[in-house]
């Protein structure tokens, strides 16, 4: 599987993402935000961090960068995309995923490991788990409070597009949502960091199944 990791000024999880993908067996290229053309890849990963200093709104400036036009075209062609933390914010700002990420309800930056429930195994990202599995992933965000209008929430629930929920809601997200899938189930955005849970040195390896499952699906496709 070929993957590209987008690097924005202020990205700080780009190399962690690349390491997690490479560990799972992917051929990874880093691409700079000013590049207007993506290389020919199966998956585009939008990493965590503070792109453009979170100016205006988290992810808002990044969503207008040249590479994001390529990202939207990649997804429109049926390509896969994974956005983690700031990457999730970028994916909502581009409109590739519904809803928005607001300031945490408690106003504090949250940096800790949280328990998640795998809400659906029906996606390339989550097929390595079983629905109902509990996993521990770190979160590190100030704006992770997911919101979507009532119709949008009903669609996400009705179409089984909520990928992960928080066991204990840390940030006020509606319906405890930690990650959502696109309509074609090929785009996943999530606030918790699976790439920070792939090595024994991380204190947990619950994220490995996400990357290995993805590799298995996309390599056999």
């Amino acid at each position, binding site marked *: 599987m070929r993957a590209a990791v987008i690097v924005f000024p202020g990205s700080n999880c780009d190399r962690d993402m690349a390491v997690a993908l490479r560990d799972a067996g992917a051929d990874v290229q880093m691409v700079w935000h000013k590049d207007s053309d993506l290389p020919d890849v199966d998956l585009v990963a939008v990493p965590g961090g503070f792109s453009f200093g979170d100016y*205006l*709104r988290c992810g*808002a400036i990044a969503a*207008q960068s040249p590479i994001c036009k390529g990202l939207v075209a990649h997804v429109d062609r049926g390509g896969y995309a994974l956005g983690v933390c700031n990457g999730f914010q970028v994916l*909502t*700002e581009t409109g590739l995923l*519904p*809803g*928005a990420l*607001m*300031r*945490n*309800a*408690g*106003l504090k930056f949250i940096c800790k490991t949280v328990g998640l429930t795998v809400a659906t195994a029906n996606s390339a990202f989550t097929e390595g788990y079983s629905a109902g599995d509990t996993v521990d992933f770190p979160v590190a965000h100030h704006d992770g*409070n997911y*919101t*979507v*209008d009532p119709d949008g929430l009903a669609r996400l629930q009705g179409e089984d597009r909520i990928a992960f929920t928080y066991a204990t809601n840390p940030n*006020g997200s509606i319906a405890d949502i930690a990650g959502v899938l696109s309509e074609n189930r090929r785009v996943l955005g999530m606030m918790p960091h699976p790439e920070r849970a792939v090595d024994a040195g991380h204190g947990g390896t619950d994220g490995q199944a996400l990357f290995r499952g993805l590799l298995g699906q996309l390599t056999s496709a």
Partner: protein
Amino acid sequence: MKAKVHVMLKNGVLDPQGAAVQHSLGALGFEGVAGVRMGKVIELDLADGTSEDTIAQMCEKLLANTVIESYRVEVL
């Protein structure tokens, strides 16, 4: 020409910052503060003759996230 864009969270969207400021005003002894909403003001220095429609497009595409925010344009 100049324009001011006022961006606010939509009514009904919980504003935790506003709630914290409201609480703090109460703690300072200011009574009767029934609500506080936080937003932002963006000042634009524009070419003369920029249409309101163009400014609205700027708001829709970048300045406001209309999923959660509303905006109001004030041409000065």
